[in-house]
């Protein structure tokens, strides 16, 4: 069958959406890539390289490569700052798109910046008034958010949902003092801190952090919250970042508070052994954090050896937040008429094929269907693309 006029809509421009779009374009299929924020790349484009004197296989750099593929591929049409409003299925899908309601959380000087050199535009003006006050601070080529986004109709033959996840909101666990104490950060913050500064600094004073604690499973594997899943990525990213920090600063004292350590990479046994010699592992999840005068933090936890509670001081506390269902999952479930599983992620048809859904022509890719790392999200997107190609009868 000919590939003429076959068109697929991919919702979400994270690594899963990018990969799916690019795989489809290789088969001459037109792709409409819908991204609600002004930037492609999702969360993974924000991550740092976690190499020490060797690559640690975190996968972050493959996201850069895929983004570059996509922005250079003419068959993929990108709609930034755009949302899906509704969809009709009568043979083909007829989709209504609208400018997204996206609002950034914070914007110094009224401008936000993309994460990669392949983000285009790179600078987006989100607060015109602020920018008018200080026009010199507005970079050349900056585009106003108001002028972005696409409202209109599209006809497509299939849809891939790749709208991703959201990191656990650490403020929900109030006793850790996230957003109250400056030196309590999340794994997501730490990714950005290392990417921006090429090293780890304390948010409070910009100085190198010496004594660092990671708390694992923040928001995941948590019965009180009803989050009965392991996020699969937070042990790997935490241990890899800890190794990066240790590599740059051999004197750094790093403690990992954990329940169970999950495997990191293909060489996991060896890597874990190295971590055990570099860090202190404490099999206990602390609950309370208190601020100290110097912006350091005091943490109370139970000592494994004797079962007694102790207080210890740290410069920097990293909360290893996990993968939660995307904020739009409920809405998207309604719009596309595809069900969610008991955890709130999208449900595939069966265990062997978690990319197809009960709704013909609608497919899933990446963390929209449950926790995955970058490599698994890419593989899942490849699988989704393959299912779409079969569905469309493209050869």
């Amino acid at each position, binding site marked *: 069958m000919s590939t003429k006029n076959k068109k697929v809509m991919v919702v979400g421009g994270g690594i899963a959406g990018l990969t799916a779009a690019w*795989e489809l374009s*290789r*088969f001459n299929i037109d792709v409409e890539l819908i991204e609600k924020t002004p930037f492609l790349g999702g969360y993974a484009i924000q*991550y*740092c*390289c976690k*190499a020490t*004197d*060797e*690559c640690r296989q975190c996968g972050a*750099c*493959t996201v*850069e*490569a895929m983004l570059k593929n996509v922005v*250079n591929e003419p068959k993929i049409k990108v709609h930034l700052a755009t949302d899906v409003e509704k969809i009709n299925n009568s043979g083909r899908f007829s989709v209504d798109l609208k400018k997204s309601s996206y609002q950034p959380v914070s914007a110094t000087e009224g401008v936000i*910046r993309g994460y*990669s*050199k392949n983000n285009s535009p*790179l600078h987006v003006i989100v607060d015109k008034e602020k920018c008018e006050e200080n026009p010199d601070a507005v970079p050349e080529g900056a585009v106003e958010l108001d002028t972005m986004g696409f409202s209109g109709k599209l006809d497509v033959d299939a849809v891939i949902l790749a709208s991703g996840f959201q990191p656990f909101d650490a403020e929900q666990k109030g006793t850790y003092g996230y957003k109250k104490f400056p030196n309590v950060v999340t794994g997501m913050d730490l990714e950005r801190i290392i*990417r921006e*500064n*090429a090293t780890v600094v304390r948010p409070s004073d910009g100085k190198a952090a010496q004594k660092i604690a990671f708390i694992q499973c923040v928001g995941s594997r948590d*019965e009180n919250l009803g989050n*009965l*899943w*392991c996020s*699969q990525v937070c*042990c790997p990213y935490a241990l890899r970042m800890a190794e990066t920090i240790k590599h740059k600063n051999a004197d750094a004292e790093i403690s990992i508070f954990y*329940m*169970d*350590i*999950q*495997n990191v*990479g*293909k*060489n*996991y*046994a060896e890597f874990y052994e190295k971590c055990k010699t570099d860090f202190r592992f404490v*099999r206990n999840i602390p609950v309370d954090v208190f601020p100290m005068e110097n912006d350091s933090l005091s943490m109370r936890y*139970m000592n494994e050896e*004797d*079962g007694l509670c102790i207080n210890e001081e740290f410069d920097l506390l990293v909360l290893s937040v996990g993968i939660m269902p995307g904020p739009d999952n409920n809405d998207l479930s309604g719009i596309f008429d595809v069900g969610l599983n008991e955890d709130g992620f999208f449900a595939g048809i*069966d*265990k*062997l094929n*978690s*990319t197809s859904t009960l709704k013909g022509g609608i497919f899933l890719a990446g963390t929209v269907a*449950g926790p995955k790392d970058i*490599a698994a999200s*890419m*593989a*899942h997107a*490849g*699988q989704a*693309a*393959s*299912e779409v*190609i*079969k569905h469309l009868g493209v*050869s």
Partner: protein
Amino acid sequence: MTDMKHTDMEEINIATDVLVLGGGLTGIKAASEIAGSGYKVILVEKDAELGGRKGPGTLVGLKEESKGLQDLEDKIKTDSNVEILTQASLVSAAGVTGDFTARLLKGAEVIEQNVGAIVVATEFATGALNEKYGLSLADNVLTQSRMDELLASESDKEKFANKTVAFLVSLGQEGNPLVLERGLRSVLALQEIDGCDAYIYAGDLKVASNGLERMYKESREKGAVYFKLTEKPEIVENGKTISFFDSVARRNIEISPDFIVVEEEMCANHLNEELAEILRINVGPSGFLQSDNVHFFPVRSNREGIFVAGSTREISSLPSAWTDVENIAIEVKDLLGDGKKIVAKNKAVVNEDKCVICLTCYRCCPHGAIYWGDKKAIISPVACQGCGICASECPMDAIQVGGFEDEDMTEKVKSGVVSGNGTPRLLAFCCQNSAFEAGEMADMFKMPLPEGLRMIKVPCAGKIDLDYILNAFVAGADGILVMACHPGNCKSENGNTFAQWRVNDAYRMMEEVGLEKDRLCFVGTASNMGSGFSSIVVDMEKRINELGLSPLK
């Protein structure tokens, strides 16, 4: 591929048959998908029957799906696009991508097949770990596989009524989610049996797979007791009693189980090593057939057209093997198309007049892209990745890489040495996959960069000739950076190692002419390291400022 200047294209014909090695479930699925896209498949299995190990270990938690699996197996046997060779094995695979000649041995018969692509789908092997716990297998000491068998039979199951069963998990090995899932499923099955108690002694619970945390919780709610330990418990008299010291409760906890179930390890198929040698693909950690390199994810090997599926490349559950197969299906389709391929003529080309057939390029090509013609080495335009390692290694300078010809590069080196108003003249040779991207990012993000710095893009650090470095010094460079991917992140596996060797050669020569070693620096960079790039080159400028300008200028 916008970076390459491949104006000169040609159409070539390639073979479109596909060889699938391994007739287990993954191989069957691969054959079915590839045949489904219209290619002829030769499915090779060393045993007499297809289907491989279908024990409860492979099909953990896939009860509902197993009917479909049987259908798939039956279907493949009647698929006219699939030729099945059982009791057969691969003895050699000559040629390159799009044109492999595979020789297969079936009994005494040698079968030759011309194929365009090869899929490797070997299954994992399991091994009992009882010895790690000082246990001997006995009526009361069972492997997980034995347990799976017993639980699969209604009559054997009754054995466990009113009994105590202890599981040992993740203490004899690091473990993985599949090992844990097998254990958890047994525990849940035992809890359906009257009066059966389960105790689980575990190291790290490897719950990093969908549904495992829930199963763990369910089993606890139904009464299973978990002891999370950091070392093995004390086991006496082949499992009569198990005990450990509970530091929180401050007492010894001892039980006397009726049965002990010992975890099994899952490891690479013993056939992998031989296959790797025949196929000239790299072996990764623990004997699996994929090096630990993110650029090969999910299913690529170091050779174009040879793909690795499921447990060939890492311990895989069936669902992830299925994901692999779908990815392979589209890779194969993209590669083989309708058998006609448009390729660049000048990706990497051997000059017949210069080649002395020394074999150097054949040996060093990380992608197995070189084969032999009458009077020279020939580079396959389908298999070649254009890294240029061969061009820099060829003793006769007989190979030119499109877009990076020697003449151009010499010119670029010369014109790249510029003075930034008396600041050091710095030249950075940058791999286009990593450092060049990082450098552009640093520039775009307006991060600090030395005024006298120029970047020279290379297809892979392995293309950086010793000559480039020496010529740059002669042209007056005050400092040179060779910026490769981090070890383990090179798209061409070891281009960065070649670059490191050449830098070491350069150090020796610099010493001879009295040039300070600090003027040359080798460093790993990733494409997302904009700020890292900036701090590396700024540091370099600082160091050169301390040394002063080059004595050669």
